[in-house]
């Protein structure tokens, strides 16, 4: 391993190089572009032996990735925002086809209004598309996810595409120190891709077929279970990862001083860094506060979140998205988890960072303090409105 000063995009590209994908197809979009640019450079300078395909749209990027995966090649693509939406049809196609494609998504707001900055409406609005969805906190985790993602996605019990989400700009374009593993370590961690789910000249197969009412449910049930199995395989992968690279991740969620906390913020992505810092500060002032960081939105950590917050007095879900006419999507998912597990802790919702609006330390402190008094409803940071019904 060696230390480098890298942006989130750079780090992810380094991770992908270590994973040796055979085919890379991608289409430019801010703030994803850098990761693809880096990879095209690596292909040019031959530090990466891969087919780099300049496609004419994101639909084709994913379609090409599926073609490559359908003949057993490890593939990578990356996108963001409008690009993710433009390939929406291919997302369910890839998951239904059980193609373990890895895609980096640079979280960015979606039009209209146009906005190139980071929020998480793009990926969260496609939560039902059958992909594993992970959210990185920093550049190191980004690089590590690039490797972990293939391990999980390609695992026989999972066979599910993997979307690694990096917050646009604040993570993708921000430089920080990253440990870059060696190729030998990476090769030890990540076996070559092997599968039956491919067209094979020796053993011809028909793929991506129709299944009528009689058998469709079975395919969907298996797909669902592939995602549920990912819970176990993520943990297996992280253990193995730690053995080789000496960094231990914590599965579907990360609990930060939440075990004995009275007030908890549940959030995801790079804002967690600031929440941690704020938790530290408030702890020093004697406040029992904590953070639950959701690392995976699918499979969803129903049980993990319920356990993590069950002893708190109140919790808030802080998220960078809104399901119009309802509430934040993460909030909905968290509420459902708590309902199912009978956790009666009151939970409120803070919608922040829309269109790249900054979320400040002051606001995080305000959320923590509001938990003591008014723990309910949907609140917009930057509008000052409480929309509780």
């Amino acid at each position: 391993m060696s230390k480098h000063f890298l942006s989130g995009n750079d780090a992810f590209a380094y991770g992908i190089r270590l994973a040796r994908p055979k085919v890379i197809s991608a289409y430019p979009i801010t703030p994803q572009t850098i990761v693809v640019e880096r990879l095209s450079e690596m292909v040019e300078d031959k530090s990466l032996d891969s087919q780099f395909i300049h496609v004419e749209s994101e639909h084709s990027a994913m379609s090409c990735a599926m073609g490559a995966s359908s003949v057993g090649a490890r593939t990578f693509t990356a996108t963001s925002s409008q690009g993710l939406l433009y390939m929406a049809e291919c997302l369910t196609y890839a998951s239904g086809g059980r193609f373990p494609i890895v895609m980096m998504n640079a979280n960015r707001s979606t039009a209209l209004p146009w906005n190139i900055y980071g929020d998480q409406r793009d990926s969260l609005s496609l939560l039902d598309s059958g992909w594993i969805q992970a959210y990185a906190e920093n550049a190191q985790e980004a690089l590590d996810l690039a490797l972990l993602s293939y391990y999980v996605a390609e695992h026989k019990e999972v066979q599910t595409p993997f979307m690694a989400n990096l917050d646009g700009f604040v993570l993708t374009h921000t430089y920080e120190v990253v440990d870059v593993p060696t190729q030998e370590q990476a090769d030890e961690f990540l076996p070559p891709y092997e599968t039956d789910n491919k067209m094979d000249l020796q053993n011809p197969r028909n793929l991506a077929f129709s299944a009528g009412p009689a058998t469709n449910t079975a395919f969907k049930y298996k797909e669902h279970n592939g995602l549920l199995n990912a819970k176990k395989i993520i943990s297996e992968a992280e253990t193995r990862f730690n053995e080789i690279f000496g960094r231990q991740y914590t599965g579907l969620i990360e609990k930060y001083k939440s075990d004995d906390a009275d007030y908890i913020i549940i959030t995801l992505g790079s804002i967690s860094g600031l929440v941690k810092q704020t938790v530290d500060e408030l702890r020093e002032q004697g406040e029992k506060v904590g953070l639950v960081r959701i690392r995976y939105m699918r499979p969803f950590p129903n049980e993990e979140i319920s356990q993590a917050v069950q002893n708190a007095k109140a919790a808030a879900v802080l998220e960078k998205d809104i399901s119009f006419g309802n509430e934040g999507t993460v909030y909905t998912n968290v509420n459902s988890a708590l309902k199912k597990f009978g956790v009666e802790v009151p939970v409120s919702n803070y919608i922040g960072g829309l269109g790249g609006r900054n979320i400040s330390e002051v606001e995080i402190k305000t959320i923590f303090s509001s938990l003591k008094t008014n723990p309910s409803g949907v609140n917009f940071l930057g509008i000052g409105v409480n929309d509780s019904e």
Partner: protein
Amino acid sequence: MKEILWHGRGGQGAFTAAKLLGAAFALRDDKSFALAFPSFGPERRGAPIRAFTKLDNKPIGNRSEIEKADYSIFLDDTLLVSSSLDELKGNGKIIVNTKQSFDDERIIAVDADSLAEKVLKRPITNTILLGAFSAVSGEVEISDIENAIKLYMPQKLHAKNIEAVEQASRLFKEVK
């Protein structure tokens, strides 16, 4: 935490300087951390831009733009306006590339253009201001900057820029 704000126009290399500073600081040992990022946005060549470096001895969670800086560095003095001082912390300082002189002690003038002309033979002043920052602030060693330059600038630019950093730093060392 030390917060450094960079001002320039697109193409002048403000962000490169911000990044080199971060790398110089963070790669020196395991206890140094840095974040560096540009101002994000659709700004085009020619438009004024900003860049940010944060330096600390623990991981930095706050990825927000710097509001009050310890050092605010201007690659171009046309960008320096009276409200620029509002961007400083209490004991913050401005370092500006200029031929003018200022009677505000918070403002440190460097004739980076002339030095660039001499050393680099091109009107690019970013590494010169980085050298100046090193000397003025003492936050980062010249050798660390040189290391960062070697890691993150194209090979053919190493020698000249290292020279530039050193000369700029010497300028201040002498003055002091």
